[in-house]
């Protein structure tokens, strides 16, 4: 069973909260304890006062009792009369003291004392009633009634005194344990009360002896002596307790005064009443009134002592109250301080631990969700949190890098994917078992299968069954190794089968590559149906063209060959006619016959050229490595006369190479170009330059390699004729004689160049000269190295 899950924050909150609560409870308990103590001490203070009031009341009661008794027992009127004012005074004192004590007692609600209080009140009213009886009886002559009243009075008051004393003891008992010092003070009071009590008994007894004027009986003397002992002992006890409780120094003057007073009084009467038989002449030398007065005066001293000690007790309890109050204040301050401290520590924990952890957790959560995280590490901290945050920061930076790399990879992958998807060729990835792993869109288009259909199947399912043995053979050969294994299997024509069952030709290139999953093969597949068709078309056209050209060449050859015979006949017959009839023929006819001979000769030349041209197209080239420089030198040598005649000069470049070509044709080529260059030249010294360039751009911008050129300083050719001049029998400058060209020279040149797989073009400027450029080698079909441009 698991409890509710608590976060670190909750646990820390719980701990601080509990600690705060404990501190608060402890402090509150202390405060409460002190508060109660304060209340107790206050109660003790008033209780102490009350106890003194009760004490005072018993004292006053005993004085009243004694005086009243003395009056009732007085042997003569005079004595009673003398005591009368004292009795009145004493009654007032008694009433006042009892009233004060009882009303003060009302403030306390001690159940066990309430009955006692009720009895005291009852007895007090009984005493009040007896007072009038005493007054009445006092006027009567001595007798039984007077004695009875005296006896009842004595009993009633003594009983009241006893009850009051019980009340005092019962009351004080409630406070006896509050404070040891105050308890000692109460004990001192107790001993002072004992002194009062026994002094009262002595006063009563002696008063009785004086009034009755009788000798003390041995029992009375014994009573006196015992009282004396108790009083003496009480004085000593009071002093010892006062010294122990520290009270004595402050009450010492009152103590010595009271004790001196009592001792002095005792000295006064000691020999008179404590020794039997000292009453001489049947009369004591002291009157009852004087005696009571002296006794009351002595109790004045005791009262002063009591008041002094009350004051000291109050002072002491006040100091207790002040100290307790101070303690309460200090404890309350400590409580508040502790709570503040707890609050502060909680705040510190929240700020220094919980918040950093929270932000770290938050950052981690966000990082987990793939959101942007911008976590700032606590660099100023060297503790666990600081280290943790630094680790997290490092982690975050790594994460950023990883994400960037992943994004780059993603981009490149999607780029690749787009390339693969949009490539026209089909791309299939297969594993070593031949099982298809990847099948691109082009494949789907080519084969009609979806990628889902294809993936997982063997590559062979894309081929017609009849082709399988060949494929297996090829693959086996491929896998067996050799160079093919390294360079891949490329450009193999194979047969594919579409989903609809149709078979089509395809070009397949297979290449092996290693990936973490093992060896894989990529197969690039191209549907070559269209290409095949185009190739077939081209082949058909080519053969047609070839047939057409051959027919044309055949026709030209046959025509020219067959034409030569009639032409020869025309020529010969014309010559025969002219030679045979030289004399008979008029001038005009002679002219016409010569013209006919000339025309037939020209016709023959034309036919010969045509025949030659047709031969150029028909005959195979006899290629051999040929030194172009030697070829030109040969040409120059054969044209020596011609060049000299024209004052022309030929300059050759040093770098003329050796090329594989048909030497006689190339000689023809150069002879034509050089002849043209000199022939169509208006300069007094025609110049012809033959050279060779490794590269040269054609006017359309295409760069050509290994270019020869023949440059002259002739009349130049207008641009509109740059193509025209290569056409057969096309002449820009009409000649007059039969030696003039037929206009086939440049046509031959172009044909020879083309037969070598080269190209020819020209650059010219009117009046300045023309340069013919040409190549003699085939560097691939069409125009050379377009890429080089």
């Amino acid at each position: 069973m698991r409890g509710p899950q608590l976060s670190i924050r909750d646990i820390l909150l719980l701990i601080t909260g509990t600690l705060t609560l404990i501190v608060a409870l402890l402090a509150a308990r202390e405060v409460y304890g002190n508060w109660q103590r304060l209340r107790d001490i206050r109660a003790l203070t008033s209780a102490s006062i009350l106890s003194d009031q009760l004490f005072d009341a018993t004292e006053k009661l005993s004085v009243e009792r004694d005086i009243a008794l003395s009056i009732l027992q007085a042997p003569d009127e005079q004595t009673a009369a003398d005591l009368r004012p004292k009795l009145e005074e004493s009654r007032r004192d008694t009433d006042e003291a009892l009233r004060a004590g009882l009303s003060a007692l009302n403030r306390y609600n001690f159940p066990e004392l309430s009955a006692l209080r009720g009895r005291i009140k009852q007895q007090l009213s009984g005493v009040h009633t007896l007072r009038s009886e005493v007054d009445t009886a006092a006027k009567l002559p001595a007798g039984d009634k007077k004695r009875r009243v005296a006896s009842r009075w004595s009993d009633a008051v003594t009983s009241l005194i006893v009850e009051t004393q019980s009340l005092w003891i019962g009351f004080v008992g409630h406070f006896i344990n509050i404070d040891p010092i105050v308890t000692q003070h109460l004990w001192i009071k107790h001993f002072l009360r004992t002194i009062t009590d026994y002094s009262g008994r002595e006063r009563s007894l002696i008063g009785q002896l004086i009034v009755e004027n009788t000798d003390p009986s041995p029992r009375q003397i014994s009573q006196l002596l015992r009282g004396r002992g108790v009083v003496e002992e009480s004085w000593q006890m009071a002093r010892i307790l006062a010294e122990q409780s520290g009270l004595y120094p402050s009450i010492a003057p009152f103590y010595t005064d009271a004790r001196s007073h009592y001792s002095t009084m005792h000295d006064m009467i000691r020999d008179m009443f404590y020794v039997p038989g000292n009453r001489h002449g049947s009369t004591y030398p002291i009157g009852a009134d004087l005696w009571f007065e002296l006794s009351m005066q002595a109790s004045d001293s005791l009262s002063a002592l009591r008041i002094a000690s009350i004051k000291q007790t109050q002072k002491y309890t006040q100091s207790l109250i002040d100290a307790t109050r101070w303690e309460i204040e200090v404890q309350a301050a400590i409580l508040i301080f502790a709570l503040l401290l707890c609050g502060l520590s909680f705040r510190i924990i929240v700020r220094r631990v919980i918040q950093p952890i929270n932000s770290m957790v938050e950052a981690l959560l966000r990082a987990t969700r793939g959101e942007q995280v911008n976590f700032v590490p606590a660099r100023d901290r060297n503790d666990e949190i600081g280290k943790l945050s630094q680790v997290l920061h490092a982690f975050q930076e790594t994460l950023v890098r990883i994400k960037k790399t992943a994004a780059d990879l993603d981009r490149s992958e999607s780029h690749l994917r787009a390339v693969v998807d949009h490539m026209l060729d089909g791309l299939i990835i297969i594993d070593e078992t031949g099982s298809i792993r990847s099948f691109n869109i082009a494949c789907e288009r080519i084969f009609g299968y979806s990628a889902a259909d294809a993936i997982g199947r063997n590559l062979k399912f894309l081929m017609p069954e009849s082709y399988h043995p060949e494929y297996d053979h090829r693959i086996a050969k491929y896998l067996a190794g050799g160079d093919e294994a390294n360079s891949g299997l490329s450009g193999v024509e194979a047969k594919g089968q579409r989903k609809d069952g149709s078979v089509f030709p395809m070009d397949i290139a297979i290449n092996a590559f290693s990936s973490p999953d093992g060896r894989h093969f990529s197969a690039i597949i191209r549907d070559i149906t269209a290409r095949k068709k185009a190739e077939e078309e081209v082949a058909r056209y080519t053969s047609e063209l070839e047939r057409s050209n051959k027919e044309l060449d055949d026709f030209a050859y046959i025509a020219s060959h067959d034409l030569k015979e009639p032409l020869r006949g025309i020529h010969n017959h014309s010559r025969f006619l002219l030679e045979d009839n030289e004399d008979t023929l008029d001038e005009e006819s002679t002219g016409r016959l010569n013209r006919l001979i000339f025309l037939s000769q020209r016709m023959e030349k034309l036919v010969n050229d045509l025949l030659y041209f047709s031969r150029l197209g028909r005959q195979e080239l006899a290629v051999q490595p040929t030194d172009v420089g030697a070829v030109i030198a040969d040409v120059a040598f054969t044209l020596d006369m011609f060049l000299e005649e024209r004052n022309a000069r030929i300059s050759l470049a040093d770098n003329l190479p050796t090329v594989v070509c048909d030497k006689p044709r190339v000689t023809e080529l150069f002879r034509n170009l050089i002849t043209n260059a000199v022939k169509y030249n208006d300069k007094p010294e025609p110049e012809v330059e033959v050279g060779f360039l490794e590269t040269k751009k054609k006017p359309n911008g295409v760069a050509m390699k290994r270019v020869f050129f023949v440059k002259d300083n002739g009349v130049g050719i207008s641009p509109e004729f740059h193509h025209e001049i290569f056409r057969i029998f096309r002449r820009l400058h009409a000649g007059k004689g039969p030696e003039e060209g037929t206009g086939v020279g440049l046509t031959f040149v172009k044909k020879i160049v083309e037969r070598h797989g080269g190209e020819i073009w020209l650059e010219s400027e009117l009046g300045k000269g023309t340069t013919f450029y040409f190549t003699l080698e085939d560097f691939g079909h069409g125009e050379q190295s377009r890429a080089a441009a």
Partner: protein
Amino acid sequence: MAILIKTICAGLALLLALPFSAPASAGENFQLVEQEIKAGLLYNFLKYTQWPQDRTNGTAVVCLLGGDPFDGHLQPMAGRTVNQHGIELRSVHTAREAEACSLLYVNASEKPDWPMLQRTLTGKSVLTVSDFDGFAQSGGMIEFTRIDKRIGVKINVDAVTAAHLTVQDRLLHLASTVHSLRAD
């Protein structure tokens, strides 16, 4: 508690010791008892009389002029206190010596010299006490009397007042029984 027990034991010892004081002869004893009462009363006189501030000095000086009529019974008073003043006993022989006293007890044997002494002490704050007849009337302040064999006290308030002394009501209570006698 141990102290308490000890004290109780001491009290009991005192209790047992007292009854064995030797009884004196009857006549002597009566005289003795009378003097004891008078001696005791002197304490009350000291207690309820107020001297001018400059006279007190922290000590109540009780002087006996013309011998000790108390037969040494005054002696225990020496060392006791009254109104927080220590009590000192002196025997004086001349009026000059008497001037320094708080209370001067004039022995009855000095009665002849009293008028002269009284004149010397006039205006001095000395409470004068004696027991010869007419002492109060002749300018003395407190006079012990005997009425029906019982000791009484007369107070000459005029003399007391003249000496810049104040007696309290309590003292007058002591003298109240002889007040009527004081009138003549």
